[in-house]
């Protein structure tokens, strides 16, 4: 039987990694649900942001919070530019998967070209920071990632739910023609949303740089779980993505703590299949 300490630590680890899953999946979820683009390139953008954070911190002495000040607006503009290109090229929901996959490969190659395939670790000096609560340890950076993910998810969800712009975006996603008839300029609003999705990737990347060791090929390891998170959380729902991220993180972590760790992906994808069969209202 696993000890209480082990179980508790596994729960903490799972919930915290769930924050990172939620951050990574939020852009894809919003883009898929409201822009009708299945944008796989957000994973590569997140890693580009991570590498830039590493570069700024390691070689230019720029603290990660200053990197955020630079990267979040820069990636917002990148998202706007990406959306403009997609609109010019008349990318559809189906073709977006192929186009953005190609874009992800291009970004991965660019990362490899600049920083090589070798592993990179941003020694920020914060990675060892932890808080002790009873017998349990809470890593500070992982906790900050969860807090950031929660704040961003609630803010984005509230914005979509209660502001005019948010309602307009949701209306346009549900019925573009009817929304246009009510004077909603979906095209203009979609630039804003695309920028936000990329900005999410930038934030996720900053935390990846602080928490993980970087390699270009690591991009692929997050795609499967992020898709599961988006589908479980419901497309176009940032809060759902966060909660689903925490659910998956929790399930995987507890599985790894009490059984063979190799079963962890099996558990998370079983949850996905069960939810797809059950079809609860939020999915």
């Amino acid at each position, binding site marked *: 039987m696993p000890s209480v300490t082990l179980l508790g630590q596994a729960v903490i680890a799972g919930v915290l990694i769930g924050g990172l899953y939620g951050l990574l999946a939020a852009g894809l979820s919003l883009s898929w649900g409201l822009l009708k683009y299945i944008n796989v390139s957000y994973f590569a953008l997140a890693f580009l942001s991570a590498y830039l954070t590493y570069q700024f911190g390691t070689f230019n002495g720029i603290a990660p919070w200053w990197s955020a000040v630079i990267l979040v607006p820069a990636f917002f503009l990148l998202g706007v530019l990406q959306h403009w290109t997609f609109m010019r090229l008349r990318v559809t929901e189906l073709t977006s998967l192929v186009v953005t996959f190609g874009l992800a490969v291009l970004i991965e190659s660019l990362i490899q070209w600049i920083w090589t395939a070798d592993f990179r670790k941003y020694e920020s000096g914060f990675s060892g920071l932890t808080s002790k609560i009873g017998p349990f*340890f809470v890593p500070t950076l*992982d906790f900050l990632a969860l807090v950031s993910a929660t704040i961003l998810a609630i803010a984005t969800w509230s914005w979509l739910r209660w502001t005019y712009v948010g309602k307009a975006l949701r209306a346009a996603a549900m019925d573009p023609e009817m929304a246009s008839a009510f004077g909603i300029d979906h095209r203009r609003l979609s630039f804003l949303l695309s920028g936000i999705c990329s900005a999410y990737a930038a934030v996720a990347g900053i935390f990846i740089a602080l928490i993980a060791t970087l*390699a270009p090929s690591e991009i692929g*390891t997050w795609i499967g779980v992020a898709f599961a998170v988006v589908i479980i959380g419901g497309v176009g729902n940032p809060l759902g993505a966060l909660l689903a991220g925490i659910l998956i993180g929790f399930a995987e972590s507890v599985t*790894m703590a009490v059984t*063979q760790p190799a079963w962890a992906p099996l558990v998370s994808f079983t949850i996905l299949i069960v939810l797809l069969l059950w079809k609860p209202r939020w999915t």
Partner: protein
Amino acid sequence: MAKYMIRPSRRAVLSSLAAASLVSAGRRVYAAPAPIRVGCTLALTGPLAQTALVHKLAAEIFVADINKHGGLLGRSVEYVLYDDQSRADQTRSLYEKLITVDNVDLIMAPYATAATLAAISVAQRYGKIIIYSSMAQVYLATYDRAFPASHGGPHPEISNPKVILDAWASTPHPPQSIAIAASKFPSALFEAKGVRDLAQKRGIKVAFYLEYDFPSRDMNPIAARFKDANADLVWLGCLGVEANQLIEAMTKIDYKPPRSFYLFPASGPLASAPGGEGATAFSNYEEHPPMDKFKGADVLIPAFHERAKAAGMPYTRVDFQAATEFAAWQMLAAAAQATSSLDDAKMADWLKHHQVETVVGKLRFNEEFNCGDDLSKVKQVQKGKWQVVWPVAFRQPGTTFIAP
């Protein structure tokens, strides 16, 4: 347009033709012999690219050096390299292309087990000799012209764990318990099972034996399990950066195991990791005495430092990956030179009956699966650098095995 055209005289045309034929005749007489083309693929992209880059540099260093000294059999050597994208299916097609389209004279194996097996199957179809530098499961290479440069003996699942446990048994307080977690990567699992079985035979308590998915995203729960088990020795059957991930995860929960072993870590990141001091790993070569005097080390070490730095690699020291790749090329060259031919059958036959002095030591190939001695060693991070600590004969003078 016509008014700007110059009409050449008949004399000029004839003299040009005569000059051209003289030049081409001269070329036929004095042209250097065609280079020996050696074909290979490496995982230049994809999840194995970090280590494959090390193999690429080592191979390039060997080729540049042999060409600097007159080439092989009086011919220069040309390295024909393709990117197999870390995919075995791609590797198979590319080796077909190397042999049938590029018509290379010789082939070398790619990096990692799956790709190596794919290349061996093609080599077997065409009767080519193939020397591989990165496959632990030598029993899978049943082709009689496949030769290992990565020497772990014919049964590394028995001999490698013995080296590791012998190393720890030599310390003042040998471990009484061991906790094992291994990546579900064939060579890692294979070694992990060997360690588990040998530990049980020696009466060392196996606290747990776990397998995790490759590549791993999250090592935090595994770190929690290691802490909970509190075994004397943490043994991780890892690849690449997983060792760093585990150390970071253990640091977060304030746990540093008294003893730790990492199977195939990324040498640079682990040596420089804040919690990496004292960590041990598998090796067969590190660039310090006595190994820095082995054949070819004087060429490999300085050139590797230079090229690795130029390639932007953070860790520029020669470790067993670079050394084994270099040794593979030394084997190929030795067989060609000794037989004065590029005939695959002759070269393979020669290797089976002779020993080759290489940068990793003297290799022989006269046992099962063309293997020889197990040259495995245990290395340890000491002041940010790897030092071989076992067997004692390969320790740098003045170095000790730091252990409880």
